[in-house]
């Protein structure tokens, strides 16, 4: 678990970003773009989904949400 930003109080539930086998906890209230920057993830390299639906960079992430990030980069011999 990568703790990116500490929770401000015990009553505030962090936003969880999940990318493959990694998890990042982010303070709620940020946009997706800000949250990805905090986690050190390039916006271009992932697609973010909430309950299976894609969300955009200016979406505000709310308390307790789990955002699944789908890696878009593939490589090797193409």
């Amino acid at each position, binding site marked *: 678990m990568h703790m990116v930003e500490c929770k401000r109080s015990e009553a505030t539930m962090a936003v969880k970003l999940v990318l493959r086998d990694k998890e990042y906890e982010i303070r709620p209230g940020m946009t997706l773009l800000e949250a990805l920057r905090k986690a050190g993830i390039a916006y*271009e390299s992932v697609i973010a989904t909430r309950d299976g639906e*894609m969300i955009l960079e200016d979406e505000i992430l709310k308390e307790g949400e789990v955002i699944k990030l*789908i*890696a878009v980069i593939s490589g090797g011999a*193409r």
Partner: protein
Amino acid sequence: MRQHKLALCKNHFLEWVPQQTERFIRKYKMFTREEKILVAISGGKDSLSLWDILGRLGYQADGLYLGLGIDGGIDYSSGSHRMAEKFARANGLQLHVLDVRREYGRSIPELSEISYRGHGKPCAVCGLVKRHEMNRLARDLGYDVLATGHNLDDEAAVLFGNTLVWNAEYLLRQGPVLAERDGFARKVKPLCRFYEREMTAYALARGIDYIYDECPFAEGSQSIYYKEVLNQLESGRPGAKLTFYLRFLEARAGGELFKGENEQPTHLHPCTKCGQPTTALDQCSFCRMIEKSTVAEL
């Protein structure tokens, strides 16, 4: 899509991608609806999306899947083969399958160990085998054109790598279309102007089930590293990747690159074994590698 300053809802995005693909097919004169297209299928998001789009646009497109024999602890090749078969069955499409081990006695990782190409990673051998076999099968099976699912990030990464070392020969050869000549099938990349992110979004929005696991040998690869570097650039300058690639195509088409000796095409000879074109005077790299693996077996 920050590079286009465009935001679309799911339904309009699913219309926009095929429309743009059609535009690129026409712009670069890739193929017509009368021609037979062989689509190289890996089971990944790009190739399956390309196959989906060509079908929706009314093109005659069959698939070709090469079984590479890569396991990597996740049964990678079997998984990707399942995805390709599943897509073909669900859409009533024809998929040709060639298993490299069955055809040549060894899988890609095994061929790589014998050939010593690629310094311990099989990517170089994998690329060689794919190019050779896709070209051979496109011609043997009577297709007019071979289509691959390379997206803009793939193309920009290759361009970046070749620019770093100023590989003039490769730079002059890179483009959305490689014309048919001297034993080479025509090769086209209809997705070459879509960001990798857009193609992932298309596959997800369309509900295409693709292999999400990365090839186990791709980790730490040069192409992924270049893509990450370019994405850093893109984060600060939306549209940078697209501009990098499009300005290159314009410069190349305008004859502004490498004037002089490099304009002469490389002289090719037929391979003495398989007959496919090669710069070598006797056997091509592929046949030399297969011969070496056969000798190692004795």
